[in-house]
């Protein structure tokens, strides 16, 4: 086992060597512009792009013509949300009352911020609050829909806590009401079986670097039939990607994206079971060794490879310092100027002190049981070290409820 060990696969993943192998010829041999229609270099590049389009489509049960290449999930989300809102806006530019959008407070910033921008531009946005388990249900969405609702955007799985929303149910509600439904599936696709037909999805974003593919390349699924979804382009130019996203295609990146999708299609079933067993071991072992250890979000409806755990009375950043051989993320944001902990954990109604005390550990294709065992020991040791220093742990052991103390906030 090599140190440090990587447990931050929800941030990004190592590119699979098989993916890199597929990409390499497209830098040095097949280097044409895939839009060059009149020579062999262009044709060969286009062939690579179209194979990748089929591989990407096949992973989510779509048709190849429904895939639009982008630079990543952030761009896919921007194109889906702004593009659909502008296309289906009720009134012309400059007037208010342009239409209603439904999303959720614990979405990724790449969904929240486009929605906020649309709100400033005159759209009306409902921000659903998922409650303590972090799950957005079809009922919540149905309750928020209005006559003028034009778009619903709800993530498939949450990037910080791994909770899984009822996407097929939400999709069915939207379909019935004739509302376009977008899902940011960045943490879901490639890890879990996806079928845009059965799951009633109209627009779906995902990215290459979360599925062991290259960074800088993403895709947006845009439904073409029953119903056909149209988008206003956000980047104008040469009319690539059927006018929805101009710009010369990143051919090696796209080829890598396709190869990554193909590997996920092949290995997903065995891999998700393997990762679930590792994650359960990690959670159960930590909970059995220490008190006041809470796994955040719904107990079962979570991604197999991701866990978000709060260790009471220990601050997340100092905990990360104590486990420097484990690369992971913290819900604490002590380094940011605001000192605000994770908005996702706060969105669950988690007390600030527990939000400051959380770690996100995300396993991946190269995670081993040996690494999980190492992580359990290292985290256990660091939490014990910090609890010996923690005035809050003393108060807890004296039977004092720290939420009842009047702290001198600063």
């Amino acid at each position, binding site marked *: 086992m090599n140190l440090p060990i990587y447990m931050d696969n929800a941030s990004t993943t190592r590119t699979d060597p098989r993916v890199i192998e597929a990409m390499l010829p497209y830098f040095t041999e097949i280097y044409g512009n895939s839009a060059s229609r009149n020579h062999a270099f262009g044709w060969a590049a286009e062939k690579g792009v179209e194979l990748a389009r089929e591989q990407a489509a096949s992973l989510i049960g779509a048709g190849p013509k429904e895939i639009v290449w982008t630079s990543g999930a952030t761009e896919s989300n921007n194109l889906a949300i702004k593009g659909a809102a502008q296309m289906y806006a009720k009134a012309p530019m400059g007037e208010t009352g342009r239409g209603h959008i439904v999303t959720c407070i614990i979405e990724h910033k790449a969904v929240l911020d486009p929605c906020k921008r649309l709100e400033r531009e005159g759209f009306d946005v409902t921000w659903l609050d998922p409650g303590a388990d972090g799950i957005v249900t079809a009922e919540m969405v149905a309750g928020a829909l209005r006559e003028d609702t034009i778009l619903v955007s709800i993530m498939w799985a949450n990037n910080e806590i791994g909770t899984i929303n009822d996407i097929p149910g939400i999709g069915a509600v939207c379909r019935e009401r004739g509302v376009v439904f977008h899902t940011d599936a960045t943490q879901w696709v490639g890890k879990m079986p996806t079928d845009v037909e059965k799951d009633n999805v109209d627009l779906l974003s995902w990215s290459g670097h979360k599925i062991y593919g290259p960074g800088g390349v993403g895709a947006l699924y845009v439904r073409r039939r029953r119903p056909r979804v149209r988008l206003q382009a956000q980047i104008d130019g040469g009319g690539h990607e059927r006018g929805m996203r101009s710009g010369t295609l990143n051919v090696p990146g796209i080829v890598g994206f396709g190869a990554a999708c193909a590997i996920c299609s092949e290995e997903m079933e065995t891999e998700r079971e393997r990762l679930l067993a590792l994650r359960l071991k990690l959670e159960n072992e930590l909970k059995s060794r220490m008190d006041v250890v809470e796994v955040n979000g719904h107990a079962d409806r979570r991604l197999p490879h991701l866990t978000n755990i709060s260790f009471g*009375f*220990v*601050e*997340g*950043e*100092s905990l990360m*310092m*104590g486990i420097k051989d484990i690369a992971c993320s913290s819900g*604490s*944001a*002590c*380094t*940011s*100027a*605001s*000192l605000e*902990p994770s908005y996702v954990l706060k969105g669950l109604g988690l*007390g*600030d*002190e527990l939000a*400051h005390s959380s770690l996100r550990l995300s396993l991946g294709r190269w995670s081993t049981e040996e690494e999980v065992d190492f992580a359990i020991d290292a985290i256990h040791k660091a939490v014990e070290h910090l609890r*010996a*220093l*923690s*005035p*809050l*742990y*003393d*108060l807890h052991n*004296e039977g004092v409820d*720290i939420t009842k103390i009047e*702290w*001198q*906030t*600063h």
Partner: protein
Amino acid sequence: MAYSEKVIDHYQNPRNVGAFGSSSEVKDRKDVGVGIVGAPECGDVMQLQIKVDDDGKIEDAKFKCFGCGSAIASSSLATEWIKGKSVDEALEIKNTKIVEELALPPVKIHCSVLAEDSIRTAIEDYKKKNGQVVESAADHDHSHAH
């Protein structure tokens, strides 16, 4: 974020960890001053206890801290610096000196401010218990980072 070697050293080997008793035990002890500053929702709470001898000298100091590595290091360093000083000398310790010693980056300056606050609060507690005049908090004009 990269921490300075001194911060890492205090984190790994914190000096003077502990307390002279639980909060209820030291509440009425005239020789002990207690300062608890910060709040869990802000991600840092520091508890400093000082034990003062008959001549007004801080003979011992103990701390506990819930917070990031810089907060732990700031409070650990504070205990080292105030031990052996008179209470009035200890009040002279400014957060900027802690920033300098630990090479804290700008986003961590509030940790040093909190350490300074904990020293002042503990000394005020000691002085109040012993019927001494407490300098008004308004005389302090350090800027809080948050």
